[in-house]
């Protein structure tokens, strides 16, 4: 009724290729951005911001990264958690060596270190394919995780062996460290995520993204059409690890505020992010956000939902039931909608277009 494209003529090539071709979509994205930038910091509680919004944003960044690799280029990686760790440690080293430089610069720059590591571990992707590659990327996961523990230089020889996030300010306001308010951390993180999402969107809709998708659909055919596999696959690994690295740095500095790497960047994290990508929708940027939101909200919902169902909060039983429920939900969602939440979103939009008529 109100979501119609009738009368919206595309008179130029640019308008035809626009990512948001409908006026309603553009209004919608503006409203969403306004709510996220203004509404949430003003009205949402600190609890909501720090347990739902910040994790969602961090995970969506990592999920976008993995989606570039798995969803767009068709290379399965189980090393995302380790690449996030590389970003976190790079950021930590950089900000201790150059404390004067703004922390946001270092959070984004640490992605480049992660990208370099990602390219090295992406090299086998030329010879190895499919699940063989997935297992090969586990080499990255375990090797890097080992480095995080065994190379004390990485954590500045701290007694705790963990990253200790120092106080850093932006315009005089603390954004990292113990004094930073959730609102400040949230706004910084949101700006980074919006900027990088815009960049990723341009990347996947352009020539680079198309060559990725050609490689995904059939790499030999893509090669015959003149796409050079080596640069294309390695670029996918680099971009993917870049996003993962920024996500890892943001996770340590803007969310956790320091912590042990083995807990934060272990193999389960890699699987969790792969799961976000799949439940959100392979090859869909908006799906990455859906998947990340789903996974970030789920623990909170279970924490408050289980007592309502009569299971005592805390204790081992609740934890076991959480495992059961999460596992069941994974299977349930895969059975109901293997193409992910992004497909549901598309179906919803299609329905809205013809609403209130059935077809």
């Amino acid at each position, binding site marked *: 009724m109100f979501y119609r494209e009738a009368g919206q003529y595309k008179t130029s090539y640019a308008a035809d290729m626009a990512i948001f071709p409908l006026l309603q979509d553009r209004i919608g994205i503006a409203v969403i951005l306004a709510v996220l930038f203004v509404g949430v910091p003003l009205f949402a509680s600190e609890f909501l911001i720090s347990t739902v919004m910040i994790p969602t944003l961090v995970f969506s960044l990592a999920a976008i990264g993995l989606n570039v690799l798995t969803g767009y280029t068709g290379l*399965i990686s189980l090393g995302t958690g380790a690449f996030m760790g590389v970003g976190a440690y790079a950021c930590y080293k950089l900000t201790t060596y150059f404390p004067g430089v703004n922390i946001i610069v270092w959070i984004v720059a640490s992605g480049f270190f992660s990208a370099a590591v990602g390219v090295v571990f992406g090299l086998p992707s030329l010879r190895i394919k499919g*699940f063989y590659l997935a297992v090969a990327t586990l*080499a990255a996961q375990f090797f890097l995780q080992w480095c995080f523990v065994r190379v004390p230089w990485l954590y500045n020889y701290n007694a705790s062996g963990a990253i200790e996030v120092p106080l850093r300010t932006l315009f005089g306001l603390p954004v990292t460290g113990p004094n930073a308010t959730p609102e400040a951390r949230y706004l910084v993180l949101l700006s980074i995520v919006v900027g990088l999402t815009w960049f990723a969107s341009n990347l996947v809709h352009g020539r680079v993204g198309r060559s990725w998708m050609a490689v995904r659909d059939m790499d030999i055919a893509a090669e*015959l059409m003149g796409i050079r596999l080596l640069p294309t696959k390695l670029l996918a690994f680099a971009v993917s690890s870049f996003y993962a690295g920024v996500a890892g740095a943001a996770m340590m500095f803007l969310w956790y505020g320091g912590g042990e790497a083995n807990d934060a960047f272990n193999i389960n994290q890699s699987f969790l992010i792969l799961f976000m990508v*799949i439940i959100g929708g392979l090859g869909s940027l908006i799906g990455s956000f859906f998947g990340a939101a789903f996974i970030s909200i789920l623990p909170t919902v279970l924490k408050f939902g289980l007592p309502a169902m009569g299971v005592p909060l805390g204790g081992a039983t609740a934890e076991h*039931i959480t495992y059961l429920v999460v596992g069941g939900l*994974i*299977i349930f969602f895969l059975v109901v909608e293997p193409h992910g939440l992004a497909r549901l979103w598309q179906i919803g939009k299609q329905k809205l277009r013809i609403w209130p008529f059935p077809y």
Partner: protein
Amino acid sequence: MSATEAREPPMRLTATGWTLVALAAAVALLVVASLSGLIAKGHPLDTLFVDPFRQMVDAPDLLVQTIWEGLVSGVLYALIALGFVLIFKASGVFNFAQGIMVVFAALTLVGLHEMGVPALLALVLAVGVMFVLAVGVERFVLRPLVNQPDIILFMATFGITYVLIGLGELVFGGNPKQMIDEQLFLPKGAIELKMLGGFVSLQKIDIAAAVIAAAMIAALAFFFQHTRIGRALRAVADSHKAALSVGISLNQIWVIVWFTAGVVALVTGIMWGARSDVSFALSTIALKALPVLILGGFTSVPGAIVGGLIIGVGEKIGEFYWGPLVGGGIESWLAYFIALAFLLFRPQGLFGEKIIERI
């Protein structure tokens, strides 16, 4: 003789050939340099490349002990990999849950015994539980997800993993348990062998593990080669469609295959459990089976066994002789690098089917 006639191409080395030549040259150079005294003791190259071998020659009993321990853990890796290969061949599912099935099976056995069920009856009941699990997986996961992309099925097994962890801990409790090895007539203690100027100690349980594994593999080979169901299984592994068209029920085959994998998991679980406690911490050993798989090939039973032995021995020798040089703990990733080294020369694993790609 016409000019167009095909001529013998000149001898040329491929890229991998050159790599091998370079490797051989490097080794020869090292040996010469070390023998001629160019690289003295304490030189970094000596500590890295020569000294470990000197240690091996100086203390052959330690070497034999290390190799034996490597072989034993290799057998157990091979058993996990075997369950995996069975499922991958018959249903094309990359079964991430195999490691958890090992723990779940062992936990069921021990948990039932703790509840007062006699050991042998508990064994039978545990086999029954694995059958129920196989039916459940087929009915609720495989059947609804038939014909979905591989990665979706892989993710579904990730869901199964969570369900099994939750279920196992909910029913039997999360604390580590002792394997009931005495009640199952498994031997205890060690045999001391005097050889090569020292003692080599062989755990009886390890010998039993090797014997039982060999017996089970022989039984499986017989089952696959000489029974009606075995033939059907091989037909399904060859081609789902062709098997369907000659009247083989895929659903039935999947139940049988998952059940077989479950029994293999139970045996593996008993063996692993007898060496350490039974708890979900054991599931990390499942991650050790993955490099075995890519080394041996996803579809090859002999590959799983040979791969398991290579990984087991390589890992133990690496950890024992080279581990201290870099601070130890390299077991977590060494296996992956061994497997990667093999994969560079054979991308489909040692015994995997040659991947033929057509446009």
